[in-house]
């Protein structure tokens, strides 16, 4: 007691000291909060900038300028012998018909050079559209029909305002004459923008107005299906084995270190691995979603394993004890109790891995998925491309119209991600058990 009393400091006004320091403490707190808000504001501003730039550049892709032409579907051009055979019909000179219709519309154009320019107003796609119409209904042959046909990319750009009219004629890709024809069409009400179905249904094309995203979307979906089908089960199995069953020894330590290191390996290395093993050694097809899926699965595995192990360790040990205490075997304890509880966490990990895989370009370049592919892939072995590669390809193209395609592709990629994350959130909510 005596010790205590000697050690007790002299009485002082603690309250006053505390009060004096309060202002300083609160100032520090306010400062910290301000920093946080500022950081978030900057981040939000950049995201907004990014989105507005992408959307601003890309939203026009969802519409496409069409012109109305009266086309004479003469039997001579399409089916001179009248066989109505589909192969014959498909080979008809629809481009000639479109050109004829254009010449008919602008009858005063006589010069050869002007005529070629006039023909250029219509997209190549116009003839495909006509052909499809005829193939769908051969009775149209011999009739004169009024149809909406897509205009060329330059005309489209002009109408959408991406090509300025006021600059000198030499510095733009479209001449005054073409502008005049288009204006005439517009005045007659024969020019309008329509929803761009083609963008969502077709594959890539050299012609911007014909290029679509669907091929890349399907390619991405197929690739991710392969990825998740491979990576998720094996990742979960690895995590469960390492966490619940494996003995702790030098070998498992080594494996653990390797898994952690793999997660940090640059993705292009996985691409090289895929090239060497899957393409060169096993001779699998180039540019195929199945190979892409393999490569991305290997790349995603460490992420899924690490997330899975974290999810398993976060399951309270009391659950395992409860199960063991009742006489459950280790496998029963894991599969009846631990795994269901860890599932939401594992799904989150898997989705993060999938999102990374979805955005991955580098490893796919190595296995040839960078090729120009027009057809929509129909199976896992068909050559295909994926969304980020498509973005990369379009961003590389010189035409002005590809710029809006690039932005649009990014938007589709983002939408894809949002849908995936939404699915993840839904699954997690569904599996989540309130603890």
């Amino acid at each position, binding site marked *: 007691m005596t010790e205590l009393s000697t050690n007790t400091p002299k009485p002082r006004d603690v309250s006053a000291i505390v009060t004096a320091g309060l202002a300083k403490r609160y100032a520090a707190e306010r400062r910290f909060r301000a920093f946080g808000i500022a950081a978030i504001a900057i981040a939000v501003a950049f995201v907004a900038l990014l989105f507005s730039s992408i959307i601003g550049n890309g939203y026009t892709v969802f519409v496409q300028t069409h012109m109305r032409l009266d086309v004479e579907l003469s039997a001579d051009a399409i089916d001179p012998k009248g066989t109505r055979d589909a192969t014959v019909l498909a080979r008809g000179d629809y481009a000639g018909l479109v050109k004829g219709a254009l010449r008919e519309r602008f009858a005063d154009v006589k010069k050869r050079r002007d005529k070629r320019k006039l023909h250029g107003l219509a997209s190549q796609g116009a003839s495909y559209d006509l052909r499809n119409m005829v193939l769908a209904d051969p009775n149209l042959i011999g009739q004169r029909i009024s149809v909406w046909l897509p205009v060329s990319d330059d005309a489209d750009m002009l109408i959408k305002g991406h090509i300025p009219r006021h600059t000198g004629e030499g510095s733009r890709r479209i001449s005054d004459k073409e502008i005049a024809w288009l204006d005439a069409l517009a005045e007659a009400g024969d020019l309008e923008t329509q929803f761009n179905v083609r963008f969502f249904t077709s594959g890539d094309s050299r012609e911007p107005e014909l290029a679509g995203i669907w091929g890349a979307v399907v390619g991405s979906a197929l690739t991710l299906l392969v990825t998740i089908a491979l990576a998720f089960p094996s990742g979960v199995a690895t995590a469960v084995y390492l966490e619940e069953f494996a003995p702790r020894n030098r070998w498992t330590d080594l494996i653990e270190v390797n898994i952690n290191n793999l997660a940090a390996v640059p993705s292009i290395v996985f691409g090289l691995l895929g090239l060497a093993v899957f393409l060169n050694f096993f001779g699998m097809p180039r540019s195929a979603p199945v190979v892409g899926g393999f490569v991305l699965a290997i790349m995603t595995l460490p992420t899924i394993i690490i997330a899975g192990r974290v999810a398993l360790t976060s399951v309270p040990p009391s*659950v395992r*004890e*409860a199960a*063991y*205490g*009742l*006489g*459950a075997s280790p496998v029963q304890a894991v599969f009846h109790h631990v795994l269901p509880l860890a599932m939401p966490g594992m799904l989150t990990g898997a989705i993060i891995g999938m999102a990374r895989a979805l955005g991955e370009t580098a490893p796919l370049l190595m296995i040839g998925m960078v090729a120009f592919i027009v057809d929509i892939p129909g199976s896992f072995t068909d050559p295909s491309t994926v969304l980020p590669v498509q973005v990369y390809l379009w961003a590389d193209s010189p035409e002005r119209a590809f710029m809006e395609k690039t932005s649009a592709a990014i938007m589709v990629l983002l939408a894809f991600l949002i849908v995936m994350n939404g699915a993840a959130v839904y699954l997690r909510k569904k599996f989540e058990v*309130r603890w």
Partner: protein
Amino acid sequence: MFRENMEADVTFDSDDAGRFDPDTDDAYSSTEEMAVVESPPKIISRGVDVFYGDTQALFGVDIDIRPNEVTALIGPSGCGKSTFLRCLNRMNDIIDGCSVRGSITLDGRDIYAKSVDTVHLRARVGMVFQKPNPFPKSVYDNVAYGPKIHGLATDKDDLDAIVHSSLERAGLLDEVKDRLHEPGTGLSGGQQQRLCIARAIAVEPEVILMDEPCSALDPIATSKIEDLIDEMRNNYTIVIVTHNMQQAARVSQRTAFFHLGKMIEYGHTDTIFTNPNEVRTRDYITGRFG
């Protein structure tokens, strides 16, 4: 009344004399002596050493646990009482690097023999844990889980009957019969712990181990569990680890005091709490542990 006692007689009455019979003072001699009369011990542990890696956690523990009795294990934290409890259903097997030496027999058969299957052992020796740990499933599924994995129920009706009788015996049926299919985690702490007890007895074990079953509960819930333990004694052999010495005194018939991995004293609870043999036991239970 009091005054009359004082005046009445000089000697202690016969009741007192019986309780302080010199023979009962020595835990061991009494145990040996009573073994002749009583049924043989349910669990016999001899020279049990437990190691966690290189650290020895238990040193030569000898205990006879008698059937249909509550045996309390008391002692300060880290004294090895929980470790010993977990030896009795081989829960220590789960822990890496844990090894057990010596012998523990259940009904005369070594539970650490190679031929013994831990799944089978744990069906016979149930366990209730410190923190109520119902599975995040419905009340019904919690109780039904054990019978299901062991195949104790022949059909749905049979399972229903097991679940109901287990809840009944755990004194929980009236409180949960309207919400059998609601999550077990939604019950109160005390109810959860009784659910865990119901879950344990649904497997019809012979021995129930309880690792501080009331440490997370309020006094009322604790009283309910203690009452339940007292009743369950008729059907099961119970070993309970508790930090609460009053609880050990209240619910148990025998008490073992552990300190620094050794069992210091084992005997009738009445003796331990009125006249312990060992100075360390006395210092611990009277709150003098320095």
